[in-house]
């Protein structure tokens, strides 16, 4: 098992530093929101997690497309790793969104288009894993997964638009309309927000690299096992 490459070690530390600074910025540096109070601070990481989840799924769809075109196994590896990380980030997005909603609108769940779309996105990518598990042949598995990740990635924004459109016609008083504009005043908040996005992008990249290494190790183990099996027979 090859040791961690130097760049990865540096990336690890860089990401940890970013998270530390991000925590400081969101908890202390960012101004306290006038109406929502402290819980609004959760918003920075909540949106960043959502952003990272969407980025992960974009990468997965692109990798899937690349696999279909080039048929190189590494693209399938990238797609699978990316979806796994995307599922984690989207989960964080949904739950933190729920926690944010609770004190503000007095409900754990708001049928806000963003939250609903995030949940649907999560379900699509959980289905992705069920699809992978159901196919034994590695080439077919990669092909099917690629097709589904492309379809899923294109479908989710369309769902969001549909739900959004529905709400614009029948405005339901459930949410402070646009989550982004609610409480984003002043340059300080924007700085913290951009920094959070950056931090989570780095977390995504670091996770991806590690997950890919894990996958490579797993595949090498499989090859070793098969070699031993054929040896014995």
């Amino acid at each position: 098992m090859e040791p961690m490459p130097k760049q990865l070690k540096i990336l690890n530390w860089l990401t940890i530093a970013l998270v530390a600074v991000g925590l400081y910025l969101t908890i202390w540096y960012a101004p306290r929101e006038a109406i929502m109070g402290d819980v609004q601070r959760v918003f920075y990481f909540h949106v960043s997690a959502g952003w990272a989840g969407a980025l992960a799924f974009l990468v997965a769809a692109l990798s899937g497309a690349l696999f279909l075109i080039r048929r190189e196994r590494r693209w399938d590896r990238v797609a699978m790793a990316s979806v796994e990380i995307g599922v984690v980030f989207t989960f964080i997005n949904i739950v933190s969104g729920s926690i944010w909603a609770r004190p503000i609108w007095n409900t754990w769940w708001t049928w806000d288009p963003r939250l609903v779309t995030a949940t649907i996105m999560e379900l699509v990518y959980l289905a992705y894993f069920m699809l992978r598990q159901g196919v034994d042949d590695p080439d077919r598995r990669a092909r099917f997964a690629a097709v589904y990740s492309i379809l899923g990635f294109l479908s989710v924004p369309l769902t969001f638009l549909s739900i959004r459109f529905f709400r614009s016609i029948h405005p339901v008083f459930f949410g402070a309309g646009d989550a982004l504009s609610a409480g984003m005043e002043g340059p300080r908040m924007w700085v913290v927000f951009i920094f959070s996005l950056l931090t989570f992008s780095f977390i995504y990249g670091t996770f991806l690299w590690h997950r890919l290494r894990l996958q490579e190790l797993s595949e090498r183990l499989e090859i070793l096992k098969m070699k031993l099996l054929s040896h014995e027979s």
Partner: protein
Amino acid sequence: MNPIDAPIDTFNYMVLGYAVILGCVVLYIASLALRFRHLRREFEVYESIARDETDEPNR
């Protein structure tokens, strides 16, 4: 909207929010670490079997 002009005390929810976010990140890192450890151990087992095989090719 609040009739009172002071922001509501949502500190506890903020803590909960951060706990969940960071908790999930840490849990995922732990899952990666555990899987790495499991795979490395299996690798060692199989590698030692392979070594035994090459030492005693005749059975």
